[in-house]
């Protein structure tokens, strides 16, 4: 379900303006998995089928369990029968799922948008200009990527405490508004952007700000979409930081899901599976809506 960073890196490295089939060497085909031979094709598809099943099975089991009767959650039949929405009703009674999903969506969207915006501006600066200290600054960005969260969490937590932002959604979002991932990927992509286009736009009298939004961003749309969805999913899946900031409120779905895990008190599997099933739906919806952009970005990168 998650889009790998590798794939996005490849997508971001793709040359804008390339079209399907361009740049293909003679003799190369866009054939099916497994090459030309029937046996290779069969093995390739068999492996892909198994991998797909392995990916889908846990999700299917989650929805199957969520749709069993609450008394049947320990049943091991692959198909739930009789069907019941009892677990969904129970989950909705125990935690405020609707507000939690809304808050989580808002936090994930704001985080992803903030990271895209800061990444875009920083990457534009790194790619379009040469200035003193550029390389050390860029390496500092690389360096922050290598610093684990555990190192920065207490200083960030202390800062939020002093700013009075603990136990607020703003406290979850603000420290994560800038990420090296988006700077690095967008800078890499902009580096391959034809400089002549930028110069032509400037000669036409456009300001740097205008060039960014009217020339660069439209051409970066596939990469921005692919990166945006990864950032959104990262923010959506983040548990530890919201758990640290929101100790006094269960205002995000991740913390709500954790509430069904009781350790020695026993896990509430029915409620957990129902709430998890609902928590996955916005991500599914996002994939469906942005599928064209994402696939397009990956195709471009694949042909590079």
């Amino acid at each position: 379900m998650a889009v790998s960073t590798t794939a996005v890196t490849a997508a971001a490295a793709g040359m804008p303006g390339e079209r399907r089939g361009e740049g293909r060497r003679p003799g190369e085909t866009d054939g099916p998995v497994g090459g030309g031979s029937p046996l290779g094709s069969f093995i390739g598809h068999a492996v892909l089928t198994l991998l797909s099943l392995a990916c889908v099975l846990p999700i299917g089991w989650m929805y199957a369990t969520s749709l069993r009767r609450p008394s049947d959650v320990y049943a091991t039949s692959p198909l739930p029968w009789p069907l019941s929405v009892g677990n969904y009703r129970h989950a909705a009674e125990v935690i405020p799922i609707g507000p939690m999903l809304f808050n989580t969506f808002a936090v994930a969207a704001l985080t992803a948008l903030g990271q895209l915006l800061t990444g875009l501006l920083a990457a534009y600066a790194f790619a379009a200009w040469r200035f003193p200290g550029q390389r050390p600054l860029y390496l500092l960005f690389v360096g922050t990527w290598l610093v684990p969260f555990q190192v920065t969490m207490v200083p960030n937590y202390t800062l939020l405490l002093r700013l009075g932002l603990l136990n607020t959604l703003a406290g979850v979002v603000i420290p994560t508004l800038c990420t090296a991932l988006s700077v690095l990927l967008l800078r890499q992509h902009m580096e391959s952007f034809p400089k002549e286009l930028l110069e032509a736009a400037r000669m036409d009298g456009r300001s740097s700000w205008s060039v960014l939004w009217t020339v660069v961003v439209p051409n970066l749309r596939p990469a921005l979409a692919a990166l945006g969805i990864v950032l959104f999913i990262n923010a959506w899946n983040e548990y530890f930081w919201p758990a640290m900031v929101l100790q006094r409120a269960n205002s995000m779905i991740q913390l709500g899901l954790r509430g069904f895990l009781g350790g020695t008190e026993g896990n509430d599997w029915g409620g957990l599976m129902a709430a998890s099933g609902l928590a996955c739906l916005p991500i599914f919806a996002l994939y469906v809506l942005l599928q064209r952009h994402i696939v397009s970005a990956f195709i471009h990168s694949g042909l590079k």
Partner: protein
Amino acid sequence: MKKSRCSGGIAAALALALAAAACGGSSPAASSPTAAATVPELRPDQQVSIVFESYNLAQAGPWTDTFTDMIKKFQLAHPNITVTAQKPATATASGYGSAAAASVQRQIAAGNPPDVGQLVFGDLFYAVRGLGATPLDTVVGHDAVQANFGGTHPFAATARTLGDVDGKTYGIPFVFSTPILYYNASLFTQAGLDPAKPPSTWAEVKTAALAIRSRTGKDGAYIDCLTKKAGDWCYQSLVDSNGGSVISTDRTRLTFADPPAVDAVTMAQDLVRSGATPKLSQEQAYPAFARGEIGMILESSAAEATFRKGATGASPPWDLRAAQMPSFDGRTVEPTNSGAALVMFAKDPAKQRAAWELMKFLTSDEGYVQLTSKIGYLPLRTSLLDDPAGLKDWAAKNPLIKPNIDQLARLRPAVAFPGDNYVQIKDTMLEAVESVVYSGADARSTLAAAQDRATKLLPKA
């Protein structure tokens, strides 16, 4: 040359980034001196706000609801005290264990520790030595602390000292269990066993488990005390009940490789080797027993609600029953305790007094009526179970609590390992136990090697 400059640049940038990341980090606060005299009572018009951190507030359903309700009732009774309740921040997927202590530690580092925390007993020494927990005897006086253990329905005598460190009371024992043998009476009947006579020794457990396995095709018995995930409180019950201990009484020498521990682990290994015990993790065994696929499980009573839900929801329903922990031949069971105590971290006298009022309320008769009837926790004020105004009706409907109450009378406190490395020592011990029981390693040499490694983690004298 170019490569070298590049590497140097990266190294310098990384160093800068690390330095920048480390800036602003603060060191954990050392324990501050506590008040020499008892703190004054609050004036009726004196407004005080305190923070209460409990891992029960992280669990949705009756746990959160009950605690929220109890805090509301406390505030009605003490309108000048405002309680802000919060859960620990933890990255663990299930259970809390030392995560609750880590959460308090992080907040101390940031300068905003909770005023009262619910910490597991294994963290108590660290809470005192490493987190600066406040000695209750100093704050409100020894007599007041002891008086709180008394009342119409006094605390079980064996529970009163569980929160003591070096002769001072730092924690009020709050919620805990002893190891209980839950069993599937329906499987017993199917296997030709008498469900009215559950096994009382480990030898009988093996016989019954093998009978269940051979006659019903289900698994026999699972001891949820022998993995790192299970924690060490229940494992200590096994070792203690075989005449041993995991650490010397002066807490300077590890003893978990001594013959009683080796024999206890060998017994568990034999259950696995003979097929009486399935090779399952805790996460697998819990639901398997609830599904009716295991005949017996040694477990905390905290799991009872899960088992009951599984038993009544199964098709057909099966008969859940409970018995005391089995003994080793010729020995008496010495059950240890799981669970948590309420520990005070407040330093301000007014907050200390307010925190003490909250601790008294949560461990009052009314508190235990709520905790037991709504969550199922063991009432440490045991005579409530005989009081019609207390829990008598509840006890009549919940007979499975009886073995736990009976074991409470001869409770032996689970010990916490000393020093800052207490978690590593515990994990080292349990990894060795797990390796012996489930992977067939040699008990004597494996435990001895683990004990040698763990001894190096003990605090230096």
